[in-house]
């Protein structure tokens, strides 16, 4: 019997046939009916795929509505005009609105230019001075009389010797007592 078995196993087809024979089993006649009964006994479940799709649509709508509400309710950007600017074209500084705070927008301090008040007579004098200085630069020999012809020789510096007198003993004692 063992030899017979060995011959059977060496060939592929007999082996397949043997495995086929092992699996020649059929479900019972009531199998389909039992499945049907089990299916009917199940609670009516909403189709998860359809439910998931509806959930996704609802979530998208909520997100869009929330985004729109945030967009329209955010504070408008504040425009601060530079009223001290002397340029012909009006420049403006646009500050971004704060994103997540409800605090009022802060306005940056305007740049201050220094104001100098000059009287008309002084202004005319300064203008004349500037004109004169410009002409003098163009013609260096315009006022030669003001410049000295020759320089005086330097005065000798006399340094007197310093003498130090020795201190008296009585003075030292008096100082110690004080």
């Amino acid at each position, binding site marked *: *019997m*063992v030899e017979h*078995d*060995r011959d059977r*196993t*060496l060939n*592929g087809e007999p*082996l*397949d046939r*043997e*495995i*086929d*024979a*092992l*699996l020649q*089993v*059929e*479900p*019972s006649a009531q*199998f*389909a009916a*039992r*499945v*049907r009964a*089990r*299916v009917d006994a*199940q609670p009516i*479940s909403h*189709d*998860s*795929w*359809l439910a998931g799709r509806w959930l996704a649509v609802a979530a998208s709508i909520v997100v869009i509505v929330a985004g729109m509400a945030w967009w329209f309710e955010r504070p408008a950007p504040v425009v601060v005009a530079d009223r001290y600017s002397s340029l012909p074209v009006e420049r403006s500084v646009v500050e971004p609105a704060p994103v997540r705070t409800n605090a009022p927008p802060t306005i940056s301090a305007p740049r201050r230019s220094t104001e100098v008040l000059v009287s008309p007579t002084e202004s005319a004098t300064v203008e004349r001075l500037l004109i004169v200085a410009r002409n003098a630069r163009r013609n260096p020999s315009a006022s030669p009389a003001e410049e000295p012809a020759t320089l005086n020789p330097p005065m000798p510096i006399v340094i007197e010797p310093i003498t130090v007198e020795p201190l008296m003993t009585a003075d030292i004692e008096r100082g110690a007592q004080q």
Partner: protein
Amino acid sequence: MHEWTGRLAGNVVTAEPELEREFDARLVECSRLAFRIAYSVLRHREDAEDVAQDAFAKAHQKFRQLRDPERFKSWLVRTVWRTALDRRRGDRRRSMREMEHERVRRPSSTDAMVTEERAQVLWQAIDALPEKLRSVVLLATIEGHDLASVARLLGIPEGTVKSRLFVARQRIKEHLQWLNTTATGL
């Protein structure tokens, strides 16, 4: 929006009987496949039927996604296989006891005993295979050795099925030869 949802709901309602008919057709078509797969793992008729019925009940819940016949079949095979393995791991002790009980109550004629012994040896050799090889051998047998069908069911190339089947057969033969040698030595 209301019109659209109304139309969609109407389609779902009208599609239900059609879905049920399709499901019944799949049930008739795939009952044997599901049962045999479960049986090949559990080796117990009632347990195999229970597992196959469970799988069909799950399939009914997901049937909208499984309307394509090929998709349904491969999903069913995977589900039955996994569920049966889980159950076998869960109560291996009970299965062993019942297998022993079935073996004892079988007719005790000589031929029947030889056939039973041979079947047990063969099952032992199949059980010794790694899961990948075992599933290919069993599915190929159940599907009438249609390798393309096995490839589709397992989601692997046909060449892989062929090579796995070859290796599996070799190992079964080696296992059986080893058992024969051991029996002769005894």
